[in-house]
């Protein structure tokens, strides 16, 4: 077991600024590797791999067929090249597509979970078990490819809420899975979504029944542990009529010299009057300061507002990964439905991010809000790419987009690429964009009040991101602020 850069995770601090102060330290804090025997598929990808994964998971024939169909589509597709990203070509035959901690069949309770795993989660500060009760968070932790433990299931079950691993949902709630799987992100949507559809190993499933307000934040924590393993989790979240759910997702990975692929698919379905809030703090290993290693985060996230007055809101804080390619989007199908996207993306050193959203206005009186804050430091390249599309029948559609970029230093870049496509004469679409640099005057003003250079930078950056950070649930907001501070270490002075 090698604790590469692990330090004790500081206690959550009440004051977010204290958190910033404590956040200072030594680089990537989550870069430890857990030594666990893993049950792996042989490297490489062919039809046999897909069958292996499906068999390992004991899946029904319909799902195997679904996977194979996706696989055959994927074989005919090529990776997207339109993003402003410099990606070394990926050898899909060198990766391992399934890695499960060896514990036989899935654990029934926390007691059955490998203690090494639990220790890992402790290091990550994930509130499992009793700690979950204190924090009021139900956690579905996905370690490499298998969902390890889902806390709080019983309490949620009393309300009729289903929150379980994807694999379990396939066994226990096949009708729901079958009805909605691929209904928001079709198999052939893009190269990475097709790949995921073929080889996804596990993930989370949530169903909130009509009229139920989920009383706690649901949370998934993803971690890539095994070397040379891709992680392809799949999240499917359905809020039935009038339901409400808030969902959090956190991600870390060990420090490794080679790049690792993370190609997830998240599908959200909000029916009439339902509301879904989906928050992500993405802190995959970004690679070292010379750009060696790091996660390729190629993720497809999309939500469909299927019913009238449905609401979907995405909030993301993207600090990690060598390359981020991610556009959480909303299909505003129902009349009066509402979509929102709040994003903070940081690139430092040689990190690259091409991220944004798509807001597709289909129904009448649909509205969407996009607030994007991009921060570039070091030699980082940060692109906002967003599409606002108003379809011919979307009477009264409105969109407001605000893209702000902050530059730290002289070698980084910020790019804004909005696509606005309006096919309705009455649509109201606003786009505002700013690019600014942290001024020496701001830094000096903070320092003249006693704040260190790091604290001053954190303060200014957090102020810049405030409109987004306030959309995050409290416990995530604190972690996000810490991550902002850590991500920008060494970028001034």
């Amino acid at each position, binding site marked *: 077991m090698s604790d590469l850069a692990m330090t004790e995770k500081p206690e959550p601090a009440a004051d977010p600024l204290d958190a910033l102060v404590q956040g200072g330290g030594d680089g990537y804090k989550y870069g430890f590797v857990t030594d666990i025997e893993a049950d792996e598929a042989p490297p490489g990808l062919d039809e046999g791999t897909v069958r292996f994964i499906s068999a390992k998971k004991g899946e029904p024939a319909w799902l195997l067929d679904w996977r194979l169909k996706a696989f055959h589509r994927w074989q005919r597709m090529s990776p997207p090249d339109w993003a402003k990203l410099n990606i070394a070509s990926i050898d899909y035959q060198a990766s391992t597509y399934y890695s499960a901690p060896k514990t036989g069949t899935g654990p029934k309770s926390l007691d059955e979970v490998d203690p090494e795993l639990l220790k890992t989660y402790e290091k990550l500060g994930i509130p499992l078990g009793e700690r979950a009760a204190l924090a009021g968070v139900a956690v579905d932790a996905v370690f490499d490819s298998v969902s390890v433990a889902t806390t709080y299931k019983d309490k949620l079950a009393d309300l009729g809420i289903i929150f379980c691993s994807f694999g379990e949902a396939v066994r226990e709630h096949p009708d729901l899975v079958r009805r909605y799987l691929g209904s928001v992100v079709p198999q052939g949507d893009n190269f990475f979504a097709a790949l995921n559809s073929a080889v996804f190993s596990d993930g989370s499933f949530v169903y909130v029944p009509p009229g139920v307000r989920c009383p706690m934040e649901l949370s998934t924590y993803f971690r890539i542990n095994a070397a040379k393993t891709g992680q392809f989790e799949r999240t499917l979240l359905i809020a039935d009529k009038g339901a409400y759910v808030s969902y959090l997702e956190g991600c870390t990975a060990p420090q490794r010299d080679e790049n690792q692929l993370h190609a997830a698919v998240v599908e959200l379905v909000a029916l009439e009057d339902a509301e879904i809030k989906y928050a992500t703090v993405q802190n995959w290993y970004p690679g070292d300061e010379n750009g060696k290693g790091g996660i390729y985060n190629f993720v497809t996230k999309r939500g469909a507002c299927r019913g009238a007055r449905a609401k979907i809101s995405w909030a993301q804080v993207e600090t990690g990964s060598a390359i981020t390619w991610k556009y959480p989007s909303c299909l505003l199908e129902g009349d009066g439905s509402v979509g929102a996207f709040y994003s903070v993306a940081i690139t430092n050193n040689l990190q690259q991010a091409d991220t944004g959203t798509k807001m597709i206005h289909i129904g009448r009186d649909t509205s969407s809000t996009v607030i994007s804050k991009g921060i570039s430091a070091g030699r980082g390249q940060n692109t906002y790419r967003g599409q606002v599309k108003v379809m011919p029948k979307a009477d009264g559609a409105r969109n407001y987009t605000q893209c702000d970029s902050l530059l730290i230093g002289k070698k980084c870049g910020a790019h804004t690429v909005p696509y606005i496509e309006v096919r309705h004469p009455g649509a109201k679409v606003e786009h505002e964009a700013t690019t600014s640099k942290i*001024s020496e005057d701001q830094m000096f*003003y*903070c*320092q*003249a*009040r006693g704040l260190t250079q790091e604290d001053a930078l954190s*303060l200014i950056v957090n102020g810049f991101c405030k409109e987004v950070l306030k959309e995050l649930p409290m416990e995530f907001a604190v972690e996000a602020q810490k991550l902002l501070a850590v991500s920008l270490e060494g970028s001034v002075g």
Partner: protein
Amino acid sequence: MSKLLEIRDLRARIVGGRDILKGIDLDVAPGEVHAIMGPNGAGKSTLSSVLAGKPGYEVTGGSVLYQGRDLLALPADERAREGIFLAFQYPVEIPGVNNMYFLRAALNAGRRQRGAPELDASQFLKAVRDKLKLLDISDDLLRRAVNVGFSGGEKKRNEIFQMAMLEPKLAILDETDSGLDIDALRVVSDGVNRLRDANRAIILITHYQRLLDYIVPDHVHVLSEGRIVASGDKTFAAELERTGYAHLGTAA
């Protein structure tokens, strides 16, 4: 009386430029209020910047001792935590950062340096209320982002409020009177006067004698072409008002 600040033959310039300060000597003891006056371009703002540690300036000679320590060796943030406060001529806007939050961060940074316990939210709030009352400032400034959208007068009041909260040993007020109308000047001056204390020294940097009608200094110095060319007691300011700077000429 022991000195708080001892400036000896201080020479400084903007990096790469010519010397602006050409040999400043000044002693400041706790409790004293010194006014430094002089025409534009005399080096007043350079002096305050160098004392506060603003980047972009370099010291080319002389020394500054603060509480017996070499001040010039300390970075700006450490000087602040050690009790030096610069009230900015042009306070800087920090969008998205709540004024209260900023102030608490600054206050606790100083307390940590002194080994004092940090103030929690309720202790901090109490301290804020006490100071607001002392300075007769309304609390609407506190809810807004640091200096964002503040009028000129509000910015200056906010500086004095920060000074009250941070309780510096040495406060340098850089042209705090500039751009203020007479009412705002009175409010700000009253605030400063209430913060006069036997343990606190204040350096007022100003272009106009008018400020000294409201804040009466113990010592008045005239800065011209990078040197202090004349000093006197509080009556000296009134004399300058009559005679102007011109007859003092430039230093030999």
